[in-house]
Every structure is written in C-alpha cells, then in structure tokens.
C-alpha cells in the first residue's frame, strides 16, 4: 500500500497545514484527507504543487509498504 508521509516533510519544512493548503491551492479538508491516508488518488498537478512548495521529490512524500509485512507486524 502507498503511505503519504506528508506530515514528516511538513514538520521538516516547518509549515502548517493551512499554509501548505493555501500555497498548493487545495482546501485544508482535502489536505487532511491526504495526510490521514484516506485519499483514493492524487492528481499529478497537486503532487507537483506539493513538491514545489515543500522543495522535495514525490518519493519523499509517498512510500510503498508491503501489506503482508504490515499484517505480520
């Protein structure tokens, strides 16, 4: 499964959810959906904006975790 590590990057860049949402151009509610891994998909344009604002790559935000390993733990 894909995990969104947005809060890690946000704390590294010392940026609040509201500020990031405003700069990216999405609502704080949608950013919250993204942060809590409730989102079904992310548009390239949104990912592009997030990477631009946080000065990072998609790999810094998105992470793949094996679901089987997760269940074993």
């Amino acid at each position, binding site marked *: 499964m894909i995990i969104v590590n947005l809060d890690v990057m946000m704390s590294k860049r010392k940026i609040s959810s509201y500020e990031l949402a405003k700069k990216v151009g*999405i609502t704080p509610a*949608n*950013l919250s*959906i*993204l942060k809590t891994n*409730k*989102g*079904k*998909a*992310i*548009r390239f344009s*949104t990912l592009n904006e997030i990477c631009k604002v946080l000065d990072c790559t998609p790999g810094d935000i998105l992470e793949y975790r094996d679901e089987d390993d997760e269940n074993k733990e």
Partner: protein
Amino acid sequence: MEITGENGIGNILKVFLQFCFIIGIVILVSLPFILKIFGLNLNASMFFIYPNGILLLIIMYRFIELFDSLKNNNPFCEENIKILKSAGITTFINCLFWLIDFLYEIFFAKSNDVVLNLMLIFMVILFFGVSVALYILSELFRKAYEYKKENDLTI
C-alpha cells in the same frame, strides 16, 4: 429546466408525490364506502387492493425521501441506493400479490371475466418489470456512488 436544487423539478415532483400519498391513504380508508356507492362488496379479490395499496404507499413514502436528496443536490448517496433497492423488493412483493390474486380468480373464484383476468396478468408483468428496473437502477446508483466517492477522494 433544473432537476436538482431548491427550485428544481424534483421539488415539484416531491409535492405531487405528497399529494398522491395523502389521496392514496384517503382512498384506502374509504374503499369499502366507495364500493358500497357502486353497489359492490369488499370480496377477496377486491381485498387484494389493501396489501398492494399499503406497499405502494410505502414505496411512495420512500420516494418522497429520495426527492429530498435531490433538493439537497446530493442524489448519489447510500440512502438512495437503499430506497431504490427496497422499492424494487416491495414492487416484486406487489407482483406476487397480483399473481396470487390472478390465481385466485382463475382457480377459486372461477372467474370468466376476461377483462379482469387480462388486467391482472398485465399488472403482474408490469410490476415484475418495474421491480427489475428498480433493482437495476439501484445497482447503477451504487456504481455512480462509488465513482463519486472515488472522485471526491481524489485530491
């Protein structure tokens, strides 16, 4: 013309359904008196109007709720799927009632009234068709709801 929203056609239909709902209750309550006026008695065949009428009133009541969601501009919700599905099941039960009525007329009442028997067959086919259509519609609504949910959760 707008279908959803405060001034949409859905709202007008809701008022019309509410009117039909009240008229339906009045007709069901006063049926024995209406029959008396025409010199008829409430026999077993006529009595089938009651379970069918009550089921149709239930469907109508659920559809009034469905039109409420049109007013709120949210037609693709889980509640509407349930309403359409239950309406489909209720219509199928209605179809069975008409079928029982038809069989009663043929085998027990030994009715020779061709018009009545043809009308009963027509009702069975009609209600069966409507129940299947409502069930398919509920499945279409479920698909639309899933797509909408996915779209809403695409950031």
